[in-house]
């Protein structure tokens, strides 16, 4: 199944590689953050950023405890021992939760089975909690959206079932009902989500309304296609841009230093 739908230009890279590169571009040097379990794409993006413009970016891999693993082969399991032995520090789960609660992470990468227009996330269930239509895996670390300085949302699926007007259950608080709703609840140092990364593009949140807004369109997509794949009315930035193809240099670095086994190249063929 082609998860992004429609036609994509012929190219020598996959949408997963493009996403990793898009993520890499948005990362600032010196920041310290976390990626969740089963997060190949953000992990690859962060490692790529370390190898390019952000040598002092630090990140911790949820599910494993590995701090700044010298990833050369993306592993299928985030908690793979091969990530741990190449790391600088092993977080215990205890440490992780301390860092998350004490707002020591500048950012985190998080996802959801539902994501709404204000960046609220749901991993618990679809339908009514007492009679769930679909039981999800569970909220895991999402309440720490109230403890990260900011967060990045990412998803490998962009469709109207994921991008809903309002989540059925708030596992992780994004901008809540928008406006200043969030700042009434959480500590002032904890800001809401800053970006959303999907196979189709990159999004931010409009500063006043805190509604999701299209910033960057990936090469094979368009504003119209993205709106059609989104279950609510999407804002579009005045300076929205279509992203160019990754440079040869970036692709080479990604494939030889980060993802030698080509895990991102094996994603469902769309490119």
């Amino acid at each position, binding site marked *: 199944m082609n998860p992004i739908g429609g036609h994509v230009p012929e190219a020598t890279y996959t949408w997963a590689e493009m996403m990793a590169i898009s993520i890499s571009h948005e990362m600032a040097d010196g920041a310290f953050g976390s990626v969740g379990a089963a997060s190949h794409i953000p992990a690859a993006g962060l490692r790529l950023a370390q190898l390019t413009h952000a040598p002092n970016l630090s990140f911790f891999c949820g599910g494993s405890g590995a701090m700044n693993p010298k990833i050369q082969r993306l592993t299928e399991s985030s908690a793979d021992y091969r990530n741990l032995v190449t790391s600088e520090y092993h977080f215990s*789960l205890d440490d992780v939760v301390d860092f998350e609660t004490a707002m020591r992470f500048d950012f985190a990468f998080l996802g959801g089975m539902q994501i709404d227009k204000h960046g609220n996330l749901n991993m618990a269930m679809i339908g009514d909690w007492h009679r769930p*239509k679909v039981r999800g895996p569970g909220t895991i670390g999402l309440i*720490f959206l109230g403890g990260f300085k900011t967060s990045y949302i990412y998803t490998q699926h962009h469709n109207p079932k994921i991008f809903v007007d309002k989540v059925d259950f708030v596992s992780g608080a994004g901008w809540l009902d928008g406006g200043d709703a969030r700042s009434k609840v959480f500590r002032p140092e904890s800001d809401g989500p800053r970006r959303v990364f999907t196979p189709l593009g990159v999004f931010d949140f409009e500063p006043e309304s805190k509604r999701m807004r299209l910033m960057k369109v990936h090469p094979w997509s368009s504003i119209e296609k993205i709106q059609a794949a989104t279950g609510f009315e999407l804002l579009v930035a005045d300076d929205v841009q279509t992203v160019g193809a990754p440079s040869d240099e970036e692709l080479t670095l990604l494939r030889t230093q980060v993802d030698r086994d080509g895990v991102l190249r094996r994603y469902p063929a769309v490119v």
Partner: protein
Amino acid sequence: MSANKVTTPEEAVAGIPDGATIALGGVHSHNGPMALVNALIRRGARDLELIPTPSAGPPVDMLIAAGCVKRLHVSYVGLEFLGMAPNYRRAAESQSIEIVEGDEAYIVYGFRAGASMLPFLPLPPLYEGTDLPKVNKDVRTTTDPYTGRTVTTIPALRADYGLFHAQVTDRKGNAQIFGQRRFEDVMAKASDHVIISSDEILDEYAPAPDPRLVSIPGAIVDHVAHAPYGSYPLSSPGHYAYDRERLVEYRDLAAQDRTKEYLDEYVFGVKDHQEYLDKVGARRLLGLQQTFR
């Protein structure tokens, strides 16, 4: 406690009564105490209350499929890179098990409070923006005596039995757990009884390991179940990889609601862990070995 706590997986779980609350170790596809879980299923345990680690997987899904579980504290239950946990999902959707809606903070802070028998833990604003307190009546509030503000609280979690897998353990129960650093120790401290399955038992003539690498002190361990490949088909970090094919076989059967076939073959179809090892076969097991020394 006796100095030699080494026994079999079957003997180690024999004393766990129906209805017990069980803390279950393991992170995703790693370090699940499978030999102990298989033994529990084989002897038909019932009405268990499970409090697994925040990243739970196949052991929980199998215990549910086998009808052992009454109540489950959920942070994450899934098959990691293989998708949803089918039996957990079905049981939750059909309400045949009771779900305690938790998360990483609920489990970690809950066990942390339990480990030191603190009555509860208060948190800074985190749950306030979410729907969790609406469906988990044990996420409550009290007054912060330092600021006068209302703060959210998490209950202490304690288990009757804690089940964990270790790579190497000595006869007294001092357990070396590789993979994610610690937390099994916090769960063990929050358990009245601790049972460790261990791939290997430290030889009495071996030089003592660096004590900083011992994760759980023997003083709180009741039984050490000698279980080579005791985490199979999950991985035992630093010793062997997960058996991906076997996990896919499980996932595919489970997704079709045919988990019984898997259990009949690999759990009920063998007498004990020793027979299970022979059934899987030496070639397959040894082919999973990973060496980091």
